[in-house]
Each structure stands twice: as C-alpha cells, then as structure tokens.
C-alpha cells in the first residue's frame, strides 16, 4: 500500500518550504520531499556568513515562512524552526527518481525504492542539481570544484576562479585576503554583476591583489603532480596562450534545468536551448496538468519571488482564486489615471507605448512598475527644469511635451508618446539640460536612476535603445542645431562611444585630429607641456565637447585631453563632421566662435601658464577626485585660524555629529581638501543602498533619508571616506548660547556623546539642506577660510589664487 497525499512538494528550497507551509496551514495532506539530509540545501551552500538580499525590495512577501535580508545562518535557523513548528510533513534523504501520472494520480518513485502518490505535484527543485561543469580535458581532478562553502578553509593557496557572474566574483573577493587568486572569465567585461562586486574586483586587480584575465577561454587543465602546484591551466587570452599554475580551481558557471529528468516526467520546454525554461501557464502549471513548477526552475530565481509562488500555487490548488501579490500595489499606482481600468490594461498600454519597456518580460515589467512612479501632467505642467539636479528617466505613455534647451520661449523640439526623456541627466549625472513642459494631457512613467541603471546593465536591448536616443539628443543639444533626420542618421552611423578610466588620454598634443569628442559622463582636463612640465589649462565637464580646435584649424591637436574620472565620450569622426559642416555652415561659425574664444583665453592667461602654479593646483584638485564633484568644501589654510567653528556649526546643526573633518585631507599650496562630501556626479554611495535611502535633491546635494538602516554599505563604497556611522539621538536638544554664557547649559556645537542605545546610522554632509542661509560651515567661518565651489569655478579660483600670491 503506498502512502497517498493531496499535494507532494519536491524540493525544500524557499519555494518548496513556502508551499509546504501553506499546505500545512490549510490542513491538507502533504509531503515535502528533500533529496538532501537538510532543507534548503542551496541556501545552505552559500558561503559562510553571506549577507542574503531580499530583492526585489518593493515586493511584499506572501508566505507563512518568514524571510528578510540577513545572514545566511540566521535565515536557515529560522526556516528550520518554522519547519518544525508549522507541522510540515518533511522527509529528508528522499530523492525523487521518477514521476508518472496514472489515472489522474501521480506516482512518485524515490531512490530508496519506496513510492508515494499524490493528486498534485509541486516541483521546486531549483537548478543547482544541474550546475554547469567544465567540459574540458583534465576537469575531473578532485581539486576542480564548483562550490565554495567556507573561504577561511583555504590559506596561502594559488586559486584560479573561472566564471563571470556574481557568485564567482564573491568567491574571488572572499578568497583574496589569504590566497593568491587569479580570476578567469571568457567575457570581456562584467555584464551581469552587481556594480559593487565589479568595482571591488577591479580595485583589487589594480592594487595587484588579484590577477584578472578577461576575454580568456580555458582549454585544458594539466595535472602537474610533483611540481609546485598540482594544476596548470592552459588558456587562450587576447594576447595569446596563457598558463596559470594553481593549487585549486573553483568554477562558477551557472546552472541549467535538468532537462532529461523533467522530460521523463512528461514536461515540455519553451525552446531547444539548454537554458530554455519549461513551458508554464500563468498559474505556473506545466504541460502535465496538476504538476506545477515554482522557483528557479520556473524562471524565478529570487528567494522572495519563489516563496510567493509556492504560496500562490497551493492556494490555487485549494481552489482559492488569488491575484498576484503585487496586484494591489500596482492598482494603487494606476489609480492616478482614471481611464486605465485594470492593472493588465495599464501594463498593456505601457508595453504598447514604450519600445524600451516592451523588451521586459511580464514579471520584469511588474517589478519595474513597482519601483517606478506613474504620473499625469496637465498642459503647462513642468516635468523638470533646466539645471535641476534630478536624474530619473521619463517614458511618455500618452500625450505630448516640448523641450526648451536654450533660454527663451521657443521650444527646441517636441516629444511624443512612445519616446522617453531625461537620459542626458541619467547618463551624465549632471544638471538637466532642458526644461520639459507638457503640451497635452500626459501619462508618464518616472523611473529612478537606480532602476534604470540595473536595466541598462542587465538588458542589452534597453542599453542600446537608450544609448541611441542619447546620441541623437546630445548632437542636437551640444551642436545646438536642428539637424534633419537624414543628417542625424549619417552622424549616428559613424558615432562611437568611448570609455575611459581616470587618467586615460582621449588624445595627445600633436596627434592628427580624429574628430570631435562630446563628453557625456565624467570630465576631462586639457593640458599642454610648457617648459618640460605638463600644465593643466582647463577643465571640461560632461555636457561639453573638446577637440573642435584642431577640426577648425586643420592643424594637429594643440593640447592633451585626459579623463579626470571614469569618463564616457562620443566621438564624431572628422569625416562625418565635415559632411555636416558642408550642409550647415552655422556649425562652422559656432566652432570658429569657440576657437577665437580659446585663443583669447590663451593670450589672456599667458602669464598664468608661464608660472604653471594655477595649473598645478588644478592638477592637485583633480588628483583628489574633484573631477567627479559637484560641490566641494575647500579650506584656505592661509586663513584658517583653527577655531573649529566650522565643525562645531556642523555638529550643532546636525544632531551633534560633525560631518566634516577640517584637520584631515591633502593640502597643496595652502588649499586643503578636507574630509567632507563632494556630492559626486556619479555617487558610489548610492549604488548598494538596500533601502534606496540616498538621493540627490534638486539643488544637487546628495542626502541620506530617514529610512537608512545603518548597514554601512555607503561607508565602504565612498572612495573619499566622508560617510560615517553615528548614533543619532532623536531627543537631542539644541544648545542655547545665552544659557551657556550664564553657565546654565552646554556650549553649542559640543559633540554629542551619543545615546548609548541609539541606532547607528550613516551620516554625511547634506549641504545644510533645509537650513536657511546655506551651509553652516561656510557661514560660521569667521575668516573666510572655508569656501564651497563647483568644478566650473576651480580654474577661476586657481588663477585668482595664483595672481594673489604673485602680487
């Protein structure tokens, strides 16, 4: 007699556990079959102490089992205790080897020979049972592994990591401190990785802590027992054959559905490729009626999504009609547009009216909408103004708007439904280049920079659509000319996007000019060798172009242009520019005008160049990463009397913690760059903020909002060490100078000792956002030593200082 259950759940990962918990709650007969000795073996296999994220953040969890971002160990412990307390019928070491449907009943055969039967089967086995392995000679060596449990187990080894996804990067970073790590990937970049992992890996490579082999295909693994290292990898790198001798290889190559096994259950697949997912109905039912597939195997790899699926499937089996978990949230979003009748209607409309968003899968689009804002505008309403500091992207679902790039009443171009706008600010991180005003009633989807960056990084079609639109508009805005579509297409066909790291040259003094460079992100310096020394002549930020001098004069490059930070530039080739000039003589005039201004500027500042000091001050500031700053605090040490009033003012106006340290920071020629936030154009602090609590305000200041959880990611991500964790005492009273004068209170500006039990939160300069009169540090400096400025003022300041000194 075989045991019979209403529901059999195969696999006890997050989705299986969630389904079983719901079945137990409903009181139906069920069994949760796990091949391993413990539940959630994949989560268990994460490296020790790993911080598990609860993405997508906006999605609520709908499961009896609990889950939130936290340490791997804590999450597993909780699940195990819930497994017990919810009375889930759990069977460990019960590996399923066959499923057959006979007369409407599933017969499930286990490896032990025992069988059970069930009315419904929920398959939640994930992908990890079928991880991709190295299919090359020598890969069967016991020191070639596909898993890393505890990085601390290895010490002093030479380890090669083969992969390219987050798992491989995280392994490499974890092993790096105690081992000699070589990272090998066949890709020529990190396209599917969290930006934080990528930047950490690249930093480590730059420091020499990790050897990085990009675009490298591993061919053979030689067994070299007896030599210093037992393994030797033979690979093809761009520069030729590469050999890596190592003690261990960890390959993290992703996973595929166990297709053969599933096909033996009668399940059909969406396509012939190995990575193709099984065919599923909207309720996650497979081609075998009564057999449901949830979790990573069904194409939903995130823990929270998978747990919600487990819950949903059980509810549907029990005949309870439920809507997707995000339905209510989306309904709320669509409420702003009365003529959108349902969520489905709204999503269809968005898909129909946005080429970019139509590239998203239904689930991706729902997630995207959860993170984005739906808004309506009436004619005359402004989406944003020129010089605003916002950086979200807007999709026009319905209506029409006009853009004013230049001052004045005449619109430069119109924007129709189906188009998007805001990509200039999104990419450059700089102020808005135009004012956008609604002409008709509009429905817009506003997506945050964070959301868009993730899409651009993970979806190639989205990236190319946005890049293309950016190029077109950049040409229109930079050259300030209404080019015809045909001309624009001609320019576009030839345009190239170039990427530079800090310090890279765009072109060199004396080079033959190859075209015009429009800086779309980052900034560059123009320099020239004077008296055997490279002297910085000027600083050009995103939204401007360089290289037109040589185009106009036909002479070789007159200056060297170098990226100050990570920079992206669009190169319009000489040939294509000359074709455009032939059609539009006005461009020639504009360039000639700029050329003459350059010449004037040069003669005017000849004295400055000769002394070279102003240039050196600029070079110094650029070395301090000021090229990425939008507003920076400088201290003129020749005026600083050390009264600490700046720090006291900062502390008094900011809960007792000063956000600047006037005593630390590099100095050049009596100018100090103190430890204080520079409000970067592309703020790294924002990149991995779990509650998305770091924002740029309209005046450009980067602020940390109240929903900070104190995780410290921004503190580690900030390259300038200007964010700190501090206990914030919400009950702190402001000190009164009069009371202090009569000995009745503390001195204003005294640092708070911090309430003992107060939570530590991330704090940094917010440019005294919300305090009238501007930044307190500058206001309270008695001698004018503390000054704030944007990058466009650096050159002026340097020249002025230099003249002052030489006077």
């Amino acid at each position: 007699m075989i045991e019979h259950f209403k529901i059999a759940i195969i696999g006890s990962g997050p989705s299986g556990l969630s389904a079983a918990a719901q079945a137990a709650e409903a009181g139906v007969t069920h069994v949760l079959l796990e091949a391993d000795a413990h539940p959630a073996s994949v989560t268990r296999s994460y490296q020790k102490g790993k911080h598990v994220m609860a993405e997508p953040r906006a999605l609520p969890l709908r499961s009896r089992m609990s889950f939130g971002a936290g340490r791997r160990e804590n999450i597993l412990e909780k699940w195990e205790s819930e497994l017990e307390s919810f009375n889930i019928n759990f069977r460990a070491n019960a590996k399923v080897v066959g499923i057959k449907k006979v007369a409407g009943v599933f017969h499930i055969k286990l490896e032990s020979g025992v069988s059970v039967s069930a009315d419904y089967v929920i398959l939640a086995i994930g992908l990890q049972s079928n991880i991709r392995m190295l299919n090359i000679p020598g890969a069967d060596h016991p020191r070639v592994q596909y898993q890393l449990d505890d990085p601390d187990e290895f010490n002093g080894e030479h380890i090669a990591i083969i992969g390219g996804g987050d798992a491989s990067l995280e392994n490499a970073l974890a092993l790096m401190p105690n081992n000699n790590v070589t990272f090998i990937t066949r890709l020529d970049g990190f396209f599917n990785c969290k930006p934080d992992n990528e930047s950490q890996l690249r930093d480590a490579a730059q420091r020499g802590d990790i050897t990085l082999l990009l675009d490298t295909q591993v061919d053979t693994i030689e067994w070299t027992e007896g030599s210093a290292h037992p393994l030797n990898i033979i690979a093809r790198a761009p520069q030729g054959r590469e050999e890596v001798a190592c003690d261990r290889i960890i390959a993290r190559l992703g996973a595929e559905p166990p297709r053969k096994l599933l096909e033996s259950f009668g399940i059909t697949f969406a396509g012939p490729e190995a990575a193709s997912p099984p065919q599923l109905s909207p309720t996650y039912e497979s081609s075998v009626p009564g057999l449901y597939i949830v979790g990573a195997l069904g194409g939903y790899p995130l823990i929270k999504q998978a747990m919600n699926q487990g819950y949903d499937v059980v509810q549907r089996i029990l005949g309870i009609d439920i809507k997707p978990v995000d339905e209510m949230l989306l309904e709320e979003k669509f409420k702003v547009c009365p003529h959108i009748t349902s969520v489905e209607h709204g999503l269809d409309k968005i898909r129909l009216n946005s080429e970019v968003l139509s590239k998203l899968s239904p689930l991706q689009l729902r997630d995207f909408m959860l993170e984005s804002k739906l808004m309506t505008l009436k004619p005359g309403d402004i989406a944003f103004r020129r010089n605003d500091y916002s950086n979200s992207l807007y999709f026009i679902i319905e209506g029409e708007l006009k853009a004013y790039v230049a001052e004045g009443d005449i619109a430069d171009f119109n924007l129709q439904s189906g188009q998007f706008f805001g990509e200039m600010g999104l990419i450059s991180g700089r102020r808005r280049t135009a004012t956008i005003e609604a002409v008709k009633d509009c429905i817009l989807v506003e997506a945050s920079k964070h959301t868009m960056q993730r899409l651009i990084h993970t979806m190639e079609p989205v990236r190319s659509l946005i890049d293309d639109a950016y190029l077109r508009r950049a040409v229109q805005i930079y050259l300030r000319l209404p080019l015809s579509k045909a001309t624009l297409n001609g320019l576009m066909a030839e345009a190239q996007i170039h990427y530079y790291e800090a310090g890279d040259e765009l072109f060199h003094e004396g080079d033959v000019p190859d075209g015009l460079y429009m800086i779309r992100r980052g900034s560059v310096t123009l320099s020239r060798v004077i008296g055997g020394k490279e002297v910085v002549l000027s600083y050009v930020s995103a939204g401007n172009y360089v290289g037109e001098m040589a185009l106009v004069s036909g002479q070789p490059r007159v200056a060297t242009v170098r990226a100050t930070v990570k920079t992206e530039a669009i190169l319009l080739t000489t040939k294509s520019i000359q074709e455009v000039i032939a059609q539009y003589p006005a461009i020639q005039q504009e360039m000639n005008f700029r050329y003459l201004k350059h010449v004037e500027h040069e003669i005017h500042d000849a004295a400055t160049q000769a002394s070279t000091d102003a240039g050196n001050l600029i070079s110094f500031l650029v070395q301090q990463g000021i090229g990425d700053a939008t507003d920076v605090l400088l201290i003129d040490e020749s005026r600083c009397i050390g009264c600490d009033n700046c720090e006291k003012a900062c502390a008094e106006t900011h809960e007792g913690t000063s956000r600047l340290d006037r005593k630390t920071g590099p100095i050049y020629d009596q100018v100090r760059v103190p430890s204080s936030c520079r409000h970067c154009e592309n703020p790294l602090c924002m990149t991995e903020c779990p509650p998305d609590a770091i924002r740029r305000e309209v005046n450009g200041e980067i602020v940390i909002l109240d929903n900070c959880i104190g995780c410290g990611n921004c503190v580690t991500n900030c390259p300038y060490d200007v964010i700190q964790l501090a206990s914030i005492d919400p009950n702190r009273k402001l000190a009164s100078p009069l009371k202090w004068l009569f000995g009745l209170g503390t001195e204003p500006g005294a640092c708070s000792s911090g309430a003992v039990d107060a939570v530590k939160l991330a704090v940094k300069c917010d440019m005294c956002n919300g305090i009238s009169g501007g930044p307190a540090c500058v206001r309270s400096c008695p001698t004018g030593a503390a000054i704030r400025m944007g990058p466009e003022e650096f050159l002026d300041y340097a020249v002025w200082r230099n003249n002052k000194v030489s006077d």
Partner: protein
Amino acid sequence: MRSRSFLEYRNFLYLKLSLLLMIAAIAAYILHSPAIGAYGGTWLGYVLGTLSAAIVCLLLWLGVRKRSYFGAGTMQGWLSAHVYLGLSLIVLATLHSSFQFGWNVHTLAYVLMMAVILSGFYGLYAYFRFPHLLTENLSEDSFESLLQEISKLDKLARVSALHLPDEIIALTNNAIYNTRIGGTVREQMRSQHPDCPTTLAVKKLHGLSKTLPMAQIKTHRELYTLMLRRETLVARARRDVMLRARLSGWLFVHVPLSVALLAALIAHVTAIFFYW
C-alpha cells in the same frame, strides 16, 4: 571665484561705515562749542557716549553670535564689523571723554577699552601672520599625528639602545622620558628649549660613535637616525605649539579685558546717573 578676507567683506562695507561714523563724530566735535566747554555731559557727549556703549555691547555680542549656528548672516560679516566698529571706538570714546582723564572709574573704563582694542590689533596681526606658517610647519600632519610618530620612534629607539652601552641607554631614556613639548605660557610662546634632552642625545650620540666596537656601529647608526628624526619631529611639534599660542593666546587677554571693560562701563554709567 574670488574668496575675500573678512577685512574686505562686502567691499569694505564696515570700514566705510566706521570711517563715516568717525568723520561725523570729529566734525560734530569741532563744530560743537558748548558754553561750559566740551565734556561727556553735553548733548554731543551723551550722543557719543550712548553710541560707544551700544557699539561695545554689539562687539561683546560676537561671543554669543559665534555660537548661534542657525539663521542668516555670516560670521565673516560679524567679524568684519567687529574689527572696524571696534576701531571706530578709539575716536568715538576719546571724543566722548573730551580728553579729560583722571584717577577715577571713568578713565578706568577708557583705559580698559583702549587695552582691549590694542589686544585686538595684535589679534588682527596674528590672524594674518600665523595660519600659513602653521600649515607650512604641519603640512598634512596634525599635532596628534606628530606625537604618535614620536612614540613610534621611541619604541624602536628603546629596542636599538638595548644592544648598546649603558651610557647610550641612559641618554636615550632621558630623551624619551624628559623631553618636554609645550610647558609654561612663556615656554609655549617662545619655544626655546636650550637643554632639550633629545638634542643632547643627538649631540652626544654623534660623539660616542668613535668609542664603539664595529659590531655595534650599525645599531648605533640606526639609533642615531631615530634620534635625529625624533629631534625634527619634536621641533615641529614645539613650533606648532608656539604658533598656536601666538595665534590664539591673545584671546586670553582680549576676552577677560572685555569683561572687565563691561564691568567698568556699567560702573561708569551708574556713577554718571547717580551723581547727576
């Protein structure tokens, strides 16, 4: 981008205001010829006196304003006004006194006021003279980091000295334990330490090198280098103390004298009304 010093604040707004005040006061004083001669009790005398007292209160308020961190206005503006209005008191208060001085509380108030202004003059000099010297001396270090560096050197020096003769150990310990940075007000201000144990150690170590066996020469060189570095660090730390003392020491005169002036001023005003 131009950054101006507090003296140039708003194109010398407060200098102009003060000059105007002073010229107006001098003109009024010359034109005004009361029957009983000029003194503080004429209508002009009262006007000048009241104005001066009001300015003194405003100048004293700087201490409170400096610690009010909310609201509009800049400290630079306040300091600029403080300096120029303070200067104008020389004229206003002198004219108010009509050059009548004696051994009384009134003249005491006047003398205190002039002393405060004089100390203020020094302050002005100090604020322009010392900040860049401080930076040149410290560069990117801080006083604390110099002390840390010295204590690091000391650890190394103690280890090196262990392998050398007792005389050298004693010299090293003397340098480590008896070198003083700072000291009395006079020492801080002058930064002269003729018997500095570190300098002594450097000098003597140099002389002792000839007496050592070959095996100890290398260690001796190490120790000598450490002590030389120590000497420069100590000198920089002392210079920092001196410059800071000279930069802000005057406030210990300026502020108490101001408080004394306030007391004398209250006595002066009370006395006037009492004897009216």
